């Protein structure tokens, strides 16, 4: 099974809920366990904290939720560059630590202080 659901949201705090709800709905459709579902929802929220908390210019963020045979992957890509705003390094560390702990793989692509994309994967049964 390889299926992808795509959501694009404005890079604004008020739309993070929509991305979490979509993660939840998609994970449910793929029959993931409640714990896996909660972990993915949490990781999506934290990835968006990393991307939104640090920018001044609002663009869009494209989020791809993908179910493969033995994994669930999420990729978040900014559609344009951003003007990095001052950010709390402790906050960013907290977000990254949470995703790291809940997911099996994580990458964060940052260019000139701007998080351009984040991807993570969770192995599922």
């Amino acid at each position: 099974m390889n299926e992808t659901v795509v959501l694009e949201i404005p890079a604004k705090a008020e739309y993070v809920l929509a991305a979490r709800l979509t993660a939840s709905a998609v994970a449910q459709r793929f029959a993931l366990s409640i714990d896996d579902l909660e972990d993915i929802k949490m990781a999506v929220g934290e990835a968006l904290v990393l991307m939104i908390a640090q920018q001044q210019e609002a663009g869009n963020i494209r989020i791809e939720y993908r179910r493969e045979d033995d994994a669930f992957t999420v990729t978040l890509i900014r559609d344009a560059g951003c003007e990095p705003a001052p950010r709390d390094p402790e906050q960013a560390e907290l977000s990254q630590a949470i995703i790291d702990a809940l997911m099996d793989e994580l990458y964060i692509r940052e260019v000139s202080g701007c998080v351009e994309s984040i991807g993570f994967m969770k192995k599922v049964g």
Partner: protein
Amino acid sequence: MELTERYDPKADAWVAAVSGEVDIYDAPEMKERLHKCIDQTPADLVLDCASLTYIDSTGMGVLISVLKHLKDVGKEMKIVHLSPYIYKIFTITGLQNIFTVEVAGDE
């Protein structure tokens, strides 16, 4: 997110109940309201999380800032009825070491 806060004069403590989901959008309001309570009447704070279903790192940051504020005025904070899943996130981030926490079902 829904937040209710009331001062209990008998206990000399604030009792706040937060429900729903606290994320990067709601966290600033929660921060402002809880700090305002402490400024208004410096007292211990009991945060009831029985109906809290989600909190992200920005919400956790608010809890840390409120705890620091309380410590500055010589007061304490206790988190009660926290869901086991959110407690799991607390343990990932080490927050269980800095907060007094009662997990739902354990008390």
